[in-house]
């Protein structure tokens, strides 16, 4: 019984150290791995995919987007990768996609400038559409960050592991106190 209690206690302290390491990792700020500034001439009746994040496995990427143009444009932030929505195309194609999967549209915006940041991006595309009658010169800046660990996933893990570790340690401490008495 004493041996089992000690083993569980040591497992508990190890779990707490795992949590400590994970907490330190979550405090490491995201690392910028790509910063690109580009321009695109967008004809009327067409759309263009300015930023794509095709990370179907994890949630380690963060995107920071800033778009500006010499006129009004529409922006759609959709939760799909480029295989379901082409890099560029006509507005008709875009409308068909939105009609088929309206739940995939996360943000819809109209204006001259657009700033947005996507935390823990899975499959995400940022679409700029020109619904006007004249061509638009769209300039955009996309910053890609990589997180050391997926924050939300790690926070959930810590939330489960921490009480488990504390429970294991508590029974060990209680046993030690009983032994002393």
């Amino acid at each position, binding site marked *: 019984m004493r041996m089992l209690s000690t083993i569980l206690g040591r497992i508990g*302290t190890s779990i707490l150290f795992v949590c400590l390491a994970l907490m*330190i990792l979550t405090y490491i700020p995201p690392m910028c791995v790509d910063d690109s500034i580009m321009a695109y001439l967008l004809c009327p009746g067409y759309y263009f995919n300015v930023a794509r994040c*095709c990370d179907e*496995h994890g949630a380690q*990427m963060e995107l920071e987007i800033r778009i500006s143009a010499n006129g009004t444009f529409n922006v759609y932030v959709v939760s799909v990768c480029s295989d379901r929505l082409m890099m560029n195309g006509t507005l008709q194609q875009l409308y068909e996609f939105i009609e088929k999967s309206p739940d995939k549209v996360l943000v819809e915006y109209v204006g001259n400038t657009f700033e947005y940041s996507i935390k823990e991006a899975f499959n995400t595309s940022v679409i700029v559409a020109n619904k006007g009658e004249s061509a638009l010169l769209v300039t955009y800046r996309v910053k890609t960050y*990589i997180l050391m660990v997926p924050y939300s996933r790690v926070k959930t893990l810590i939330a489960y592991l921490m009480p488990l570790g504390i429970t294991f340690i508590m029974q060990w401490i209680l046993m030690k106190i009983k032994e002393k008495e």
Partner: protein
Amino acid sequence: MFRKGKAFLEVLAIMLHEDYKFPVLELFVFLFVLSTFILMSPTSFQAITFHYTKERMIYALISAQMDIPGIPFLIFLILVLKNIAYGFGSDFEKGTIQVLLSYPLRRSALLTAKLISGLGIPLVMFVGIGIFALYVLFPKLVLNGITYIVISYLAFLSYGLLITAIILLLVIYLKRSGAPLAVGMAFCFLRIIARGLLDLYVEATKRTTPLKIISIFDSSLALRYYCEHTIWSPSSSEVMGYVIISYCLVLGLFLIAYYYFSRRLDI
């Protein structure tokens, strides 16, 4: 039977207590987790950006943890060297081994207890944390490719286990801790130097024979060329063959150690 089992557990508890005094285990766990995530994270970004295949992705992520410079793998080897070379060697030097031999146990059972404590625990901890990190970063990848993950770990661990077997043999034969510890450290750095020289030689001569020879001792080399398809591209069955051969070698050395400890050791 029950008496022997109890004695085995008692010896194991003594060894565990000696090898992992508080907070040795916790510190190593902490270092494993931290270094594994720090090395795996940039690799995972690379894997996502360049759309690696499932096998390539698993290889890239595990090699970040295990291959050169492989800080987590180095930490693992240091822990094993501390337990086997220093810990077990000190038992011989201080005469603690005689106390342990007084338990109603076979000598092979005593060595098994030492290997569970000195090698088994670090192995479970190391591979467990590696798979845990992979699961945190890529849950789908772990669920779909567990077989390939296991094979990759087996391939990468072959060299570490070979070093451990050699060190164990040296400890038992010399009954000292210093020399085996130095040899173990030398083997760790030898791998780094040998890999660098081998890469240069193969690049210059385009000969694959040295790669095949080294793969017998370190099957991760065959796995690397299987994934990268550069100068040498072994098939999956060839890689499995190298893994099996390297483990036969490791098993052979451990059996010699068992035989020597049980029958030939004069204590």
